[in-house]
């Protein structure tokens, strides 16, 4: 008996291994996942290369330097300069930040610090809903409702003593860098607010209580504890907002006035990188016009890539400090 049992053990093990069905599922799923992922990667790389190749066609006509620094955009006489659009994108995005950031910080403080939860939830929800409205709706609403209101605001400012400064000078048409900045501010407000709120929420309870116990008022607690703690996160939110503002297309197209020019006055009509691509590409039939627009797309891509990279760096640094709080 015992003599039989000893060799039986390895035999059972061997038969167990033999009995197990060949495992087809593992390679099947692994290869499925691999192939789909590689396909996605290949498609993305392919698109980047194809787009770059299309844009490079422009270099037969205009040198990269002339394209980047050219201030004239006249497809009818095949003159392509990108500067009016770069300028427009920069001005409108900065205006959007100037308007949106204070509002977003105030709203974030209101929701996080002042309002009782019962009132805070609907306010926060309302602000986040702003992000859900499609940009074409903002654009159309902007033309019909916002631009007429802003026209009188702009006329008042341009007519006042401020109008002597070239930044605020007339004539006022209505659609302008300023109108685009306001629309963009509305559109980036939710992301800046919500990232700032997440950052403020991560303030350690102890530090906050400590400040209050020392006799600080609520504002002093915010000023000296909450804001310094959330600084990185707030900055990340601002950069994310900037990245949205740079790429926003349709809403800007409706309210910026669509004039490829560089004007010091924020009340003058202008143009932005994404909006000129959107409005001219489908009908671009002049020589090198499509290539020039794709070239603008490449500039836009690089610009938003740089801003996103900056955002990621800041978020990464902030995450490390906040111990993994998610501020994406």
């Amino acid at each position, binding site marked *: 008996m015992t003599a039989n049992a000893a060799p039986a053990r390895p035999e059972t093990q061997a038969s167990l291994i033999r009995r197990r069905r060949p495992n087809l599922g593992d390679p099947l799923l692994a290869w499925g996942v*691999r192939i789909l992922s590689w396909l996605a990667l290949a498609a993305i790389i392919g698109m980047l290369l*194809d787009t770059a190749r299309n844009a490079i066609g422009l270099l037969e006509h205009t040198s990269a330097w002339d394209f980047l620094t050219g201030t004239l955009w006249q497809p009818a006489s095949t003159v392509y300069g990108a500067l009016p659009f770069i300028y427009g994108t920069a001005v409108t995005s900065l205006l959007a930040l100037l308007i949106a950031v204070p509002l977003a910080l105030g709203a974030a403080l209101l929701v996080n610090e002042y309002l009782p939860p019962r009132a805070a939830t609907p306010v926060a929800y309302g602000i986040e809903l702003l992000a859900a409205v*499609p940009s074409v709706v903002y654009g159309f609403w902007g033309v019909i409702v916002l631009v007429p209101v802003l026209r009188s605001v702009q006329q008042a400012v341009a007519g006042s003593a401020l109008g002597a400064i070239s930044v605020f000078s007339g004539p006022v048409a209505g659609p302008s860098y300023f109108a685009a900045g306001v629309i963009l501010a509305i559109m980036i407000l939710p992301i800046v607010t919500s990232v700032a709120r997440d950052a403020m929420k991560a303030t350690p309870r102890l530090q906050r209580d400590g400040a209050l116990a020392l006799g600080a008022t609520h504002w002093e607690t915010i000023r000296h504890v909450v804001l310094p703690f959330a600084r990185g996160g707030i900055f990340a939110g601002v950069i994310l907002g900037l990245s949205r503002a740079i790429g926003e297309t349709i809403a800007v197209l409706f309210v910026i006035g669509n004039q490829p020019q560089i004007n010091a006055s924020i009340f003058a009509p202008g143009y932005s990188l994404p909006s000129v691509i959107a409005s001219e590409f*489908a009908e671009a039939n002049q020589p090198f016009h499509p290539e020039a627009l794709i070239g603008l797309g490449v500039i836009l891509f690089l610009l938003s890539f740089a801003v996103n990279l900056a955002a990621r760096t800041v978020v990464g640094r902030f995450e490390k400090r906040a111990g993994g709080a998610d501020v994406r």
Partner: protein
Amino acid sequence: MFAERSLRATGRGRRGTNRLVFVLCLAAGALALLPLVLVLFYLLTEGLKAWSPAFLVSPPGGITSKSGGAMNAIVGTLEMTGLGLAIAAPVGLAVALYVTEYREGRLAIAVRTAVDLVAGVPSIVIGLFVYSLVVVTMGHFSGLAGAIALSLVMLPIIARTSEEMFKIVPRRLREGTMALAMPRWRAIVAVYIPTVASGIVTGIVLAVARAVGETAPLLFTALGSNFVVTDLNRPMSALPLYMFQNALNIGFPAARERAWAAALTLVAMVLIFNVLGRWLANRNGLEGR
């Protein structure tokens, strides 16, 4: 006495500042909500005036004609979003699995970086990408190109949410599948995916909410069409495109009305998906953004 008075004065100053900041924050909150109120107000008043159930099921008329609906746009949106999702959902899930479960070194990092890159790209540039790859290759604008553009809008959202979900599969569950000697594919298909399915669905719903409202990626991929087209090989309209084209002809009262009606329909669709997504996200303890 002097000291006491100055102390009290500072106290009042500090309290005054405190109150002032509260009032400023209140004003900021009110100003932040004002656009939402105004947009919704105009959508409801102007939109409801122009909207009727017939709008959804009538083919479009000319720019000046009073009659005519958005059936071409509704059909196009459903078809392109549907096909886009049919591409983006499996690929997004695969990317998430590849990056979290399989983690094949540099390739996984490359895949993730590429998908993140697309997430950060302005949607108009996605339109240019798809134009360069698909429209130029096919030689014409098409619903298929539009669907691919929308799938690129959705892919990073789905991949990102699914990735986050796979990361939070409880360790105990993972160890359980190992203890049962489950092959990896069964662990993934029968345990991990069902565990986090609701989170993945949340990502999909939020992705659809985004894609349904996008105009820019469709401008020179799907192009738009005045006919009710179901053939993906032909140019096709979509609700945002339809609204865009009518909104550009603001001088014509009929076009303006159609734009409002389309805006109302579009916002209603987007909000339904958004609220659904957020509700799912809250139920699963996810951040719905």
